[in-house]
């Protein structure tokens, strides 16, 4: 019997040999994320007169490999907002769980005494919170490697669309796109909604068609994109999220006129 309490419950040295403590320590310093691993590409969002359209494809790439083709990158929050995730997929999953927790807490803390109250976090509150979270993590030099779009309605019921990225930078505009989309899709969307005033003239169908068109352009020109995508429409009636959209009426006729596009045959 070993009478030393610190030895109790441990594998006995005389049976198993002394513990090899070298397993417990590494020789390198602890490292934070320095680059994303599995990534999602662009997220697009556009305001129209009654709400916001937001879309992202269903691909998670592992470098240039199209690794997972059924990853849903839009999530709803409190049945009234949608968050679109670009960038690292594991950080997206972390944020997804975090937002689920936040939504549960919020559902418990509000509306316990006042039956018809609606003080759940609206899209503006959610965007502010996420941007603070992202900035907090980048300040710890351990960033969440994402760029986000938050779509929904603000406290006055007006359409709300804003972006936040891994540095905690925020941006808002009648149309927004992250990643490659900011170069390829943003100019097309700006054609429809150049400024806040023009949002009131845009119908739901116009906005959806424009976003679908942009998703097609992105599939043509962004090598990390996919032809199956998710599309959500947020209005005062709630969120309509469709996660299995397919690109239609593709035309690759332009491709063979461009040298360097696709596989080289010459």
């Amino acid at each position: 019997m070993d009478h030393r309490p610190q030895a109790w419950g441990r594998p006995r040295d005389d049976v198993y040999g002394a513990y090899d403590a070298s397993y417990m320590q590494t020789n390198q310093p602890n490292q934070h994320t320095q680059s994303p691993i599995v990534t999602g590409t662009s997220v697009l969002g556009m305001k129209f007169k009654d709400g916001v359209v937001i879309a992202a494809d269903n691909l998670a790439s592992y470098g240039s490999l199209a690794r997972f083709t059924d990853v849903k990158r839009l999530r709803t929050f409190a049945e009234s907002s949608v968050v679109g995730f670009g960038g690292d997929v594991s950080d997206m999953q972390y944020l997804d769980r975090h937002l689920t927790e936040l939504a549960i807490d919020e559902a418990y803390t509000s509306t316990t005494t006042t039956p018809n109250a609606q003080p759940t976090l609206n899209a503006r509150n959610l965007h502010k919170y996420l941007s603070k979270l992202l900035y907090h993590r980048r300040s710890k030099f351990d960033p969440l490697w994402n760029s986000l779009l938050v779509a929904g309605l603000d406290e006055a019921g007006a359409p709300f669309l804003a972006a936040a990225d891994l540095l905690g930078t925020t941006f808002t505009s009648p149309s927004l796109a992250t990643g490659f989309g900011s170069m390829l899709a943003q100019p097309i969307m700006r054609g429809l909604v150049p400024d806040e005033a023009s949002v009131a003239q845009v119908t739901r169908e116009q906005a959806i068609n424009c976003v679908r068109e942009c998703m097609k352009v992105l599939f043509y020109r962004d090598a990390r994109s996919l032809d199956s995508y998710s599309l959500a429409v947020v209005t005062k009636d709630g969120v309509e999220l469709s996660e299995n959209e397919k690109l239609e009426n593709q035309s690759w006729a332009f491709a063979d006129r461009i040298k360097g596009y696709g596989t080289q045959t010459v």
Partner: protein
Amino acid sequence: MFRNNYDNDSVTFSPQGRIFQVEYAAEAVKQGSVVVGIRNAEELSSYQKKLFAVDEHVGLAIAGLTSDARVLSNFMKQQCLSERLTYDRAMPLETLVSLIGDKAQLNTQHYGKRPYGVGLLVAGVDDSGPHLFEFQPSGLTQEMLACAIGARSQMARTYLEKNLDKFADCGRDELIRHGLRALKETLVQDRELTVENTSVGVVGPKEPGKRPLEAFKVHDGAETKDWINSIADDTETSGDGMQVDE
């Protein structure tokens, strides 16, 4: 030296199951000067010498130890600011009040701590409308339609109970007058409400159900003159059928 053996600290129950320190704290509230608060669907008001604005949309009135009230009010100010910083929204009243409720309750179950010697009426407007909460040193918080705490506040509560049905349809100024009449009930003989001893805090939506706020503001001195004058020759002291001779 002590009233009994069981009131030395807030963690010892008496054989009857009472915690004397918490009861003494409740006494401190009764010794503080009176405050009255009323809310209806669109207006909300409360009064006393010590009215604090916590945030744009919340204010509070105190009865009891001022220094304890300042501790709680500073805490509430910080919580409201942090809510605006992290969520860009006004702190929901119920959340705010339950925070100070928990904070006060904690003081009743730690050895070496004492309960707060102050009662509060917390008034404010959030997304779900106007609210009035009562806070007690035991940590108990409850939402009220109208409430009065402090010295001789029972008289005010009696007035408020009698007139409760009227508050919902009152305009802003009428509701304030109801509050002043309730406050008047608590006065001892030969004392009157004057611009020196009365202040009125008001917070409410600009229009019923609308977001832009009439931010919490404490009116005192000359600002309360018209309200006080308008109830000065009021013979209807405690509601219906209590006409007094000219």
